[in-house]
């Protein structure tokens, strides 16, 4: 009975998470302008950059896209299973080719700790 009362804080629940594999389903790509991307240099490239970006969206590779207002960069959520695939796509963007933007890539998946809520529903 004691065990049941303590269930909410039971350490033993936590290792059960290990049974759940969290697949990588998205890659978070945080892009920031490099020193080469000075305003006068980057301006000429941006019309090409945006078109290449829209093409990646239309190809189903860029799922979500955002602008970083305080850093003049971008954030993409990409439909890629691997960092390598995302990197390959992003380095071909005009700003990447010109060395004017660098991306940090973070593999993402379903929020694994949600599995902790999957115990049997309480009996009434």
């Amino acid at each position, binding site marked *: 009975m004691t065990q049941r009362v303590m269930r*909410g*804080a*039971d*350490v033993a*629940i*936590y*290792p059960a*998470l290990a049974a759940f594999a*969290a*697949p*990588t389903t*998205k890659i*978070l790509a*945080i892009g*920031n*302008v*490099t*020193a080469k*991307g*000075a*305003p*006068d240099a*980057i*301006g000429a490239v*941006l*019309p090409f*950059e*945006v*078109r290449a*970006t*829209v093409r990646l969206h239309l190809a189903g590779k860029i799922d979500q*896209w*955002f*602008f*970083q*207002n*305080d*850093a*003049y*960069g*971008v*954030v993409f959520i990409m439909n890629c299973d691997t960092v390598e695939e995302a990197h390959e796509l992003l380095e071909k963007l005009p700003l990447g080719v010109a060395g004017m*933007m*660098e991306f*940090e890539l*973070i*593999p*993402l*998946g*379903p*929020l*694994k*700790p*949600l599995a*902790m*809520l999957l115990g049997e529903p309480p009996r009434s």
Partner: protein
Amino acid sequence: MGTRQGDSRLSDDANRTVGATDTKPPPNVADVPTTKMLAIGRLTEAATPEARGPIMPAEVRATVRLHLAGKVDQWFFRTDGSGVVFHINTTDPAEARSLLDRLPLRMAGMMEFELIPLGPLRALGFLLTEPAAG
């Protein structure tokens, strides 16, 4: 180069180190509003499996409550196990910080968040010029 410093930018109040801080948006595209906050959570060294185990049941419930309250819009697990990524429905970094600071792992010093204000993809404005005639 883009010198985003790995550790410093993850500390709570660190000013984010961005490569070209003097970079100003080129003209001829309209500014965009901040519409949401990206929160990148990283487990700290204090968050050993043994230490965070007892806290996780409360952490996941608090996270689901933030989702049900309409504050955490999207949630992801970092599949290298280093933390989480949230999209938060607020335009105010202070509000996002306040919400995240009340999460159990955060209160226990086991999680740090970097916040990045996000808005619509500004460069789409380049596509709005009328096509050339003829």
